[in-house]
Structures are given as structure tokens and as C-alpha cells.
């Protein structure tokens, strides 16, 4: 009996790359979470759980919750907008679809920082949006939109919307149009057809998009730093500060570890949703 070794051979370069250059360094950093911070910023190699405990201190837990709230808001709104766009694209004639998808992912081809800076220009006190409001006839003092929570949410949605469009487009475009027609034929209105047939069959795409945006948003530090101003902190900024300014690597590692756990949990939940929606092949035969 010889087993086919080719799949392993094909996979191993990529797996080694990921393991050696991502998993190992990450683990090395995460291990620091269990050590004490040295007097002058170094690391004192004595085991402690203090760093982990500190993450759950109300001060930091609140930043965690705040980050989750902002990431959730961004992911939720992006999911709705992205699903609607993907739905419209999938309903177009085939030859138009690839062009529209191309435009949807076009922002990815420009630099993330440049795009975020562009938003500063838009949201500025003298920015385009305020000028537009004045031009339309709005008078009086306008609150600055820059350096607010809303600005961060808007920036995150803007950056990650293409992911949701792509992840929702995939199941929507695969949907056999006869399935929707069958629902109509059996007496369902357009809305009922959407609610009971199209939506349940494409939920995995939404779940993928939502989790993607959430995970990328909760750990993001560029957008909150630029659009949220200096005083606004998300968990990503906190981690950034521990490693680069406070020089408290063990606490930074502890924060990162909790963040990674949250992300892994979500990714697993998403995988479960996707699995269940794919027809439940392992289901009971009742």
C-alpha cells in the first residue's frame, strides 16, 4: 500500500512558509504575555498571569468592548450595503458582472493610507462634505465629522466594503434562478421569496463578509489613529502603544492574545454557519 504523497508535497511549501514566518513568531510574542515586565522596559522571565488579568481590568475591557462595538457596527453596515450591491451585480447580465466587480475591488489597488488620508480631506471642518452642506443651503455651525467615532466607522466600512461585496456575490451568483422562480410559482411574493429562499441560501456569504470586516476592524489601528484623532483608542491602537511607546511588550502580548482568541472564535462560528447552510450532508435521516 502506497499512499499518494503528492498533496502533501504540494502543500508543504506554503504551510512551512506560514508556520515558520507567521505562527512561530506570533507564538514567540504571545508567550511574552506570561512574563513580567522588566524595570526599564525589558522582560523579566518569571511566570505571571497579571498581564492577562490586566486585560480584563474595566479600563481595558471597556476599550475592548468599544472596539467590538465599532467593529460590529462597521461589519453590520458593510454587510447590508455589500449584500445589496452584490445582489444588484448578480442580477445584471453576465457580461456586465465582471466589469462591475472590477470596479468594486478597484480601491484595493490604491494604498490604504492614501485612501484613509483622502477621507480626512472629505470630513475636515473645511472639507468637501461641510462645503457641500453649505452650498445646499445649510447655515450655522457644523460639527466637525473628523475625529469622531462615526468617522472611524465610516472609514472602516469604506475600506472593507469590497470584501463583503465579493463574499456575498459568490453565493448569489451561484444561485440557480429557477429556485427563485419555483418560489414565485408556488405562490410566494418577491419579498417572501427573498426572505425564505434567497437569504437563507446566501447567508454563508454574509457571515463570511461580516466576520472578515469585524476581524479586520477590531484589530485595525490606522483608521482609528487617522480618522479618530489621537484621543480615540481602539484595541489595535492600544497594542500598538504597548509595543512602540509604552514599551510594555508582555501587556501588548496579552492584549493580542485575547484579541486573537476573539477572532478565532468568530471564524469558527462563521465556518459552522457555512457548513450548516451547505445542505447539512451529515444531518439525520429522520
Amino acid at each position, binding site marked *: 500500500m502506497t499512499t499518494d504523497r503528492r498533496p502533501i508535497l504540494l502543500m508543504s511549501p506554503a504551510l512551512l512558509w506560514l508556520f515558520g514566518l507567521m505562527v512561530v513568531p506570533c507564538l514567540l510574542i504571545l508567550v511574552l504575555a506570561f512574563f513580567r515586565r522588566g524595570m526599564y522596559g525589558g522582560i523579566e522571565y518569571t511566570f505571571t498571569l497579571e498581564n492577562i488579568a490586566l486585560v480584563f481590568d474595566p479600563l481595558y475591557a471597556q476599550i475592548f468592548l468599544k472596539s467590538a462595538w465599532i467593529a460590529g457596527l462597521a461589519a453590520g453596515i458593510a454587510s447590508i450595503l455589500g449584500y445589496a450591491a452584490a445582489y444588484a451585480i448578480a442580477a445584471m447580465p453576465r457580461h456586465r458582472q465582471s466589469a462591475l466587480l472590477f470596479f468594486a475591488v478597484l480601491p484595493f489597488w490604491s494604498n490604504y493610507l492614501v485612501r484613509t488620508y483622502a477621507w480626512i480631506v472629505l470630513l475636515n471642518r473645511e472639507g468637501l462634505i461641510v462645503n457641500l452642506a453649505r452650498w445646499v443651503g445649510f447655515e450655522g455651525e457644523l460639527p466637525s465629522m473628523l475625529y469622531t467615532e462615526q468617522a472611524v466607522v465610516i472609514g472602516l466600512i469604506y475600506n472593507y466594503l469590497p470584501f463583503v461585496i465579493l463574499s456575498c456575490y459568490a453565493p448569489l451568483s451561484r444561485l*440557480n434562478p*429557477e*429556485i427563485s*422562480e*419555483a*418560489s*414565485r*410559482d*408556488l*405562490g*410566494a*411574493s418577491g419579498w*417572501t421569496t427573498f426572505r*425564505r*429562499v434567497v437569504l*437563507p*441560501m446566501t447567508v454563508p456569504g454574509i457571515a463570511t463578509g461580516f466576520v472578515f470586516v469585524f476581524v479586520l476592524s477590531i484589530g485595525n489601528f490606522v483608521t482609528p489613529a487617522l480618522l479618530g484623532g489621537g484621543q480615540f483608542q481602539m484595541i489595535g491602537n492600544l497594542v500598538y502603544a504597548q509595543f512602540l511607546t509604552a514599551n510594555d511588550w508582555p501587556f501588548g502580548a496579552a492584549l493580542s492574545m485575547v484579541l486573537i482568541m476573539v477572532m478565532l472564535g468568530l471564524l469558527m462560528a462563521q465556518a459552522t454557519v457555512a457548513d450548516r*447552510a451547505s*445542505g*447539512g*450532508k451529515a*444531518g*439525520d*435521516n*429522520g
Partner: protein
Amino acid sequence: MTTPLLSLRDIKKNFGSAQAVAGVTMDIHRNEFFALLGASGSGKTTLLRMLAGFEAPSGGDILLEGSSIAAMPPNKRPVNLMFQSYALFPHMTVAQNIAYGLEMDRLAKAEIKSRVSEILEVIQLGHLGGRKPDQLSGGQRQRVALARALVKRPKVLLLDEPLGALDKKLRSEMQLELKRLQHEFGITFIVVTHDQEEALVMADRVAIMKDGALLQVGTPREIYEYPETRFAADFIGVMNFLPVSVASGGYQGKEGPLIRAADAPELAAGSAAVAAIRSERLGVETQGENSLAGEITDIAYHGLDLLLHVKTPLAETPVISRLTADVAERLAPEVGQTITLGWSARDTRIFPA
């Protein structure tokens, strides 16, 4: 005269500049099993989709029990369609799939439940109500799709190539099964098919479609024995076509004797025509007005019957004669042998060339 159940009045459908359905007028009666037979691109599926409400006619009208349904959306029509792909909802169980249409009718829960289990028994899938569609075989899925459409007791059930995805053996079983269900439920069936045998076996009446128009409508026997056009004759069964010219008292092939035909159309003497004879009417022992000697060039064994390819002076291509198994066994024909074929003038159809 009662009004027909369904009445199509000069129905047309254009897609851009292409005409898919070119003015179809016909009536379909209560409890009829009607087959729309045609090759792909003949417009039969477009016609069916207009009956279901998924395409709006570009012209003409559709009357159901005398009132127009042409502008009625599909979810309001008392008509159901069984899709070629079955289009079962993959995220619902068999029972949920079947219940879906009844829920849309806002029936009471108890009634839905009893009707679902009733129809599951009828299609002999009573034990599989809890399964998801992808846990079923092709034949089982086909029956679930049928049950889902049938359970609503529509006035007309439309079936788009209902047996197309099944293997041959299952298909012939299901042909009879569909007939049985149609009788049992007393519902008008309109089935679209490209399979001539399927249409002949199942339908009370068959319409042959070509290029978006009806070529001929009639009972299976009328369609088979008295095709009105050369296309209809060719589409169904195995037909021998012999190029002939019109002579006095008969028709002259390339060489050989005059072919005699009964009930032939009036054609000008000397004009070109085609004589058509069914392979099973062209027998070795058949007595008839026509007889012709030829050499066997090929023998194809089909179990139930035997197809002889016989080269005759009448035409370049050999004619095909179908012998039943018992005749074939007695005669034991061999390639190279010369035989005499005979057929009756009544079995000869003449079409203008």
C-alpha cells in the same frame, strides 16, 4: 360546447429581434394530458414559461376558463410548474419543500400537515420527509418536485422535461406513473419534451413545435400515422424518405417500379416529391401494392426487433426495414442476401419536395 380550460390566442414572444414563439393558437381541455414536442430552440419552453407567468407574451392572449391571465404574476396563477432542474430548496427538508406552496396559500397548519403526508404516500416517499434534497437520488428528487407542484392542486400543471434527467429504465416507469397521477388527481398536465417516445406514450394529444410555431396538433396516433409535414414525419419514429417525381398513377424513384400511394396530395405531374414509409411498414413478408427487391447491406440487432438496411434501385441511401424478433428468427437474414420488400399504398405518405 364548453369553454376550453386553457386557450392560447396568437401568442407571440420576441427576444430582441429573435422570435421565440411565432403566433401559437390552440385550446387545451380539462383533464387532458398534453405534450409540447419539439427540438431545442423550437420555442416550447418559452411557451411553457409564458403559461407559468415568467415571460410576458409580446402579443396575443392566454385565457384560463375564459378570462385572461396574460398579465397575472406567477404567484397569483392557479398554475404550477415543475422545473427541469427540479429547483428544490436545498435548505429545506422534503416535507418543508412540499409544504411551502401550501403555506403561501395560508392553509391551516393541520391541513398542510395532512396534505403533505398524503402526497408523500402517493409518491411513495413517506419515510423520507425529513431528508434534505441532496440526500436523495435523482428519481426521488424528481418525485419531490412533482409532489411540490401537485400538492397545490393547480388547474394546470406544467412540466418542463420532467423525465429528462432520469436514466432510461426509470424514465419508462415514470411515464406510466405520471399518467396514473394525472388520472388520480384529475389535473390538466402540459408537458414539454424533446423525446418523441415520451410524448406518444403519455399524452392524449401532442403538438409538434418548430421555429416557434405549431406544426401539427393531434392524438399520438394521428401524429404518428398521418404526419402533415415532412418535418413531423421525420421527427417521430424511423421513416424512410425516397426522392420521387410525380408520374401518372404513381411516383417514380431513381429507378425501379412505380410507387403507389393512397390519400396522396394533388401534385403537378413531373414535379419533385418525397415518398415516406415507416420502417415497420416496410416488411419482408408484407403483402401490398408495392414491392421492391434489394440487397441487405447491414443488420442492426435491437433485441425486440431487427433493422435491415437494404440497398434498392429506388434511392442512393439504403431503406430501413424493421422486422420483429419472431420474423427475424424465422427468416435469418444475412448481409449480402437479396430480399423483396413489400408495403401497402395506404402506408405511403407523399410530401412535396
